[in-house]
C-alpha cells in the first residue's frame, strides 16, 4: 500500500488560501455584519420593516440584527421626519453608539426635511449628525434601502482601519 505524503500545504484537504491585507479582512467582517439601529420616526419606518421582512430580507446582507439599543448598533437608519423636539434625542442616541458607526438618512424627510418646510421640523438630519448615505423617496422602496446598504458596504470596505490605528499609536508614542 502506497502512501503519499505531501510536504507543505495541501489545498485539497485544507482548502484554498486567500491572501489579503488585515485592513481588507477587518472591513470584510464589518461590512457583512452591520447591525442597524432602526431610528423609526415616521412612515419610512414601516418601509424599513418591509426591508427586514421575508420578501426583501435584509439578512441577505448580514444586517438582520436590528438593535434597539444604540450601544449594540453600528449603523443608525434614520427613517422618518426628525422634528426639533426629537432632534436632541436622535443626537444623544447617535452619541451613545460605539465607533465605528455610520448613518443612513432614509427618505426625503430625514435627508432634507422633505415636504415639511415648517417651524417644527429639522431640515435634514445632517444638521446634527454626520450622514453617510442619503436615500431619496417618500418613502423609499425597500430595494432603495438595500441599495443604500450595499453602498454603505462599499464605503466600509475602503476604510483604512489599520492605518488609522497606526496613526493613533504613533500619536500616543509621540
Amino acid at each position: 500500500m502506497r502512501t503519499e505524503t505531501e510536504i507543505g500545504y495541501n489545498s485539497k484537504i485544507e482548502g484554498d488560501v486567500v491572501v489579503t491585507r488585515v485592513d481588507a479582512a477587518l472591513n470584510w467582517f464589518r461590512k457583512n455584519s452591520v447591525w442597524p439601529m432602526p431610528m423609526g420616526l415616521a412612515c419610512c419606518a414601516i418601509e424599513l420593516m418591509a426591508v427586514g421582512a421575508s420578501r426583501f430580507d435584509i439578512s441577505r446582507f448580514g444586517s438582520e440584527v436590528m438593535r434597539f439599543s444604540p450601544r449594540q448598533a453600528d449603523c443608525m437608519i434614520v427613517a422618518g421626519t426628525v422634528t426639533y423636539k426629537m432632534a436632541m434625542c436622535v443626537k444623544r442616541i447617535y452619541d451613545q453608539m460605539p465607533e465605528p458607526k455610520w448613518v443612513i438618512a432614509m427618505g426625503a424627510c430625514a435627508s432634507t426635511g422633505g415636504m415639511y418646510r415648517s417651524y417644527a421640523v429639522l431640515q435634514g438630519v445632517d444638521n446634527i449628525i454626520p450622514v453617510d448615505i442619503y436615500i431619496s423617496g417618500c418613502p423609499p422602496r425597500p430595494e432603495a434601502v438595500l441599495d443604500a446598504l450595499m453602498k454603505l458596504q462599499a464605503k466600509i470596505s475602503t476604510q483604512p482601519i489599520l492605518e488609522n490605528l497606526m496613526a493613533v499609536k504613533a500619536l500616543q508614542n509621540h
Partner: protein
Amino acid sequence: MSALESAQKIKAKFGDLISEPKEFRGEISVEVADAEQIAAVCEFAKRELGFNYLVDISSVDNYGEDPRWTVVYHLRDIVNVVEISIKTDLNEEKSDIPSVLPVWRTANWHEREIYDMMGIRFRGHPDLRRILMWEGYPYFPLRKDFPLAGKPSDLPGIAFTKPAPLEGGPFVTVAGGKDAISREPRIRNPEE
C-alpha cells in the same frame, strides 16, 4: 331634540348672553357674549341638554381685529346624534378663559393644545403645559403673526429651532391664479 331646539333652550336659559342660533350648511352655532360664562353654558348644555361628548375645542386667530381670539366648542349628543357648536370671543390682552375641564374631562388635552399653539390660557386647568412643542419654547406657532418657516430659538440640551427655507417650494401656492392648475401648490422658484 334637534340642534336648533337645543340652541333655543340655551338662549332661553341665558337670555341676552347668547346670540340668536345661526345655521350654516345644516350646522347650528350660538355665540356667547361673555367668555367668562362659557363654563356655565357648557355645564348647562351637558347636564340639561345631553351634550355628553366634547368633540373638540378649536381656536381662531382673527388677526388684526378686536377681539382677536374666537374659541369654538364642538358639542355632540352621542345618544340622539345632535351636534352644536358654541363660540365665544376673547381679546388679546386677556387671553384667559375658564376651563371646561369640570364639565368634560376630555377638555384637558384640547385646552393644552390651544394653549400650546395659540397661547390662550385656561383658568382652572390643573396641568396647563405645552402638549406638542417642548416646555420653554418661546412662541405660539399657530398665531397668524408667526411665520410658517418658524423663528430661531435655542434651549441648550433640550431643543433648538432654525427657520426653514421656504423659497421655491415644495408647496408654494399662487393666489389669484387663473385656474386650478396654476394655483396648485408645487415647487416654484422665485424668478418664475
